[in-house]
């Protein structure tokens, strides 16, 4: 191509020189012949420029050097002119080619830098190895117009394929051997290296203190396999190593943080639980050993008292264990909601029945709005909330009998307010009391510190909120807000009287 253009350019120049030759001296014509050489050198390879230079000299000699239309030269000075023309052409083409190469290199470097920049920007936002590996292989495959894959050691001596682009990229048994060698030695192998240079692909190590892996790349475009590109390849591998190292580090930091947090939590939970479990157990052990060993010294009332202690403390222990298990279930996220429509009255009724023994002489004033006949909750869990809140009121306001329940609905929400006239909550503790093992003002009151934490867990599972506020005229009010779907039509209109079966043996 370059040669043809060169020939054409020389012809045009010759025509031009012939046309304006009458006003020019032969040395000017020599200058004119530099033009095609420069043009070809700028655009094409050095050989084409040299050939153009030779053709220029030939054309000048043939057309403009006496004797005309022969290649012979009469004037020895003209030999010098022709030689200089050829030399100038050579030097020009050299310079031009060099400039052109530098430009091209600069362009390539720029696109490489851009490619690396894009890569690093993209991997910065990714959070795990696999995502990073996918981004890197995708970029590598695009940039080198080929196929790429990343393998990591899996910690059991095997290699785990983290990501490949495109999906069908696979390595042979022997190639996998190279990947393994590369991981083990931390050196590149395959094409463009000293190890297995005949292979069709290159394997680069991705090795740091945290990761052991390799990037295998098969370069599709031949011109991209030149030596200069191998630096880009290693830059790529470096980038990949850094990015994966960073995500590993991030993961380690995250899991370490979680570990520390959960260990702190477990430590608190264990110390609290062991204290709270040991207290009733101590009473039971004490009372029962006394009954066994000192029966003869005990009178009837002491005997009865010890038995009473065993029973109440065993009850307390059971409540605590139940609470701990409930809490663990809520925390584990394994607790799925069985949402059902249930009359609010039934929830209240079963709550009061469950606390019947402790309610003796206490009045619970209940007001349920007509609009909240049915409520959509998990009956078992929600009843637990009501039991815990009522239990809380009974414990903290033992002398003041008034406990009020108000239930009303508005805007697809139901609001439940449970108030007592007890001592209230210390200012600033309104939210804290819902945390595990945190107890309110009356710390002499027995309890696990889990009741309200369970309440909050259940209410949050229902997408609702629960808050505690001190009431104006003394006492605490717990306020629960729950979202409510519209009542299904069949709840009341479904006329079951109509589907009464035939008379049976009831």
């Amino acid at each position, binding site marked *: 191509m370059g040669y043809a253009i060169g020939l054409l350019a020389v012809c045009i120049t010759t025509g031009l020189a012939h046309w304006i030759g009458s006003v020019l001296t032969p040395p000017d014509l020599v200058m004119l012949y530099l033009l095609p050489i420069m043009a070809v050198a700028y655009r094409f390879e050095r050989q084409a420029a040299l050939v153009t230079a030779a053709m220029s000299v030939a054309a000048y000699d043939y057309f403009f050097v006496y004797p005309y239309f022969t290649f012979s030269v009469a004037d020895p000075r003209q030999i010098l002119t022709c030689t200089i023309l050829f030399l100038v052409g050579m030097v020009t083409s050299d310079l031009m080619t060099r400039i052109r190469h530098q430009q091209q290199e600069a362009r390539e470097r720029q696109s490489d830098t851009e490619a690396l920049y894009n890569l690093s920007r993209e991997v910065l936002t990714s959070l795990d190895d696999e995502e990073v590996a996918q981004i890197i292989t995708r970029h590598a495959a695009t940039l080198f117009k080929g196929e790429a894959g990343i393998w990591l050691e899996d910690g059991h001596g095997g290699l785990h394929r983290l990501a490949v682009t495109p999906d069908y990229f696979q390595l042979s048994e022997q190639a996998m051997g190279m990947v393994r060698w590369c991981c083990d030695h931390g050196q590149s192998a395959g094409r463009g290296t000293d190890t297995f240079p005949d292979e069709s692909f290159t394997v680069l190590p991705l090795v740091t203190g945290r990761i052991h892996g390799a990037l295998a790349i098969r370069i599709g475009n031949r011109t991209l396999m030149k030596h200069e590109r191998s630096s880009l390849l290693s830059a790529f591998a470096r980038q990949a190593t850094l990015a994966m190292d960073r995500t590993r580090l991030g993961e380690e930091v995250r899991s370490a943080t979680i570990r520390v947090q959960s260990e702190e939590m477990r430590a608190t939970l264990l110390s609290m639980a062991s204290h709270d479990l040991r207290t009733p157990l101590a009473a039971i052990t004490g009372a029962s050993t006394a009954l066994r060993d000192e029966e003869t010294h005990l009178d009837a009332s002491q005997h009865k008292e010890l038995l009473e202690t065993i029973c109440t403390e065993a009850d307390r222990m059971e409540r605590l264990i139940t609470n701990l298990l409930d809490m663990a279930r809520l925390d584990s996220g394994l607790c799925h909601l069985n949402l059902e429509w249930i009359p609010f*009255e039934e929830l209240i009724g079963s709550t009061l029945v469950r606390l019947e023994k402790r309610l003796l002489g206490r009045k619970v004033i209940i007001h349920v709005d007509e609009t909240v006949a*049915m409520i959509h909750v998990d*009956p078992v869990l929600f009843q637990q909330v009501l039991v815990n809140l009522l239990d809380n009121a009974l414990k903290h306001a033992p002398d003041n009998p008034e406990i009020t329940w108000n239930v009303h609905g508005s805007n697809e929400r139901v609001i439940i307010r449970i108030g007592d006239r007890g001592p209230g909550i210390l200012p600033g503790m309104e939210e804290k009391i819902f945390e595990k093992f945190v107890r309110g003002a009356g710390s002499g009151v027995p309890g696990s510190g889990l009741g309200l934490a369970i309440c909050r867990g259940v209410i949050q599972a229902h997408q609702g909120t629960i808050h505690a506020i001190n009431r104006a005229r003394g006492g605490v009010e717990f306020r629960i807000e729950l979202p409510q779907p519209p009542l299904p039509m069949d709840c009341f209109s479904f006329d079951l009287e109509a589907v009464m*079966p035939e008379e049976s043996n009831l």
Partner: protein
Amino acid sequence: MNPIGTRILLVEDETPMRRFLRTALSAREFEVIETTNIREARLSVTAHPPEIILLDLGLPDGDGIAFTHEVRAWSQVPIIVLSARGREEDKVLALDAGADDYLTKPFGVNELLARIRVALRHAGQLQAGMSHETVLKIGPLHLNPERREVRMHDQIVALTPIEYRLLWHLARNAGRVLTHQQILKTIWGPHYTHQTHTLRVFMAQLRRKIEPDPAHPQLLMTEMGVGYRMRDDG
């Protein structure tokens, strides 16, 4: 009902639990046959037919629920499940399998004895073939099946046919927990067993008619997440 000599089959693998139950029940003149796994229980149930079975669920050679199904295939002997699994789903599973009652560990002796009493009485009624003429009396509540008449403190209560059937079913099983499924199946038929909310609405209506304070029931008790139970103090 006289418990003296009543034969109880105890299926329980925990030695301390067996010791406690043996002591408590023998003291009440029950005859206690102890087994520690399902294989032994299966042999015992045929060799010395018991009048009641106390069954633990987590046994070394299988699950108590499966054993319940097995026994129910040929016998109506009352089964009371004693289990440390306290979740409502487990109770429903056991009751629907045919267990008569479910006690979560830990429990007191009095509670166990009360449940045994209820189960034995119910079994006795089944055997005697309770006639429709018998008037059922549960505290202030009197049901006369012959006249389909319900009286509360001698006041006649007007009930719809379904309400009456519901009340009669619960009263006949007084003291026992009936699961939602069991009630729905008995009263409305097998196609309505998912209509739990409808059952709840009917129960609410029934409470309004029978309970002095429907928000604090004394007779129609809710076993949350499981079903309903007519309280029985007798």
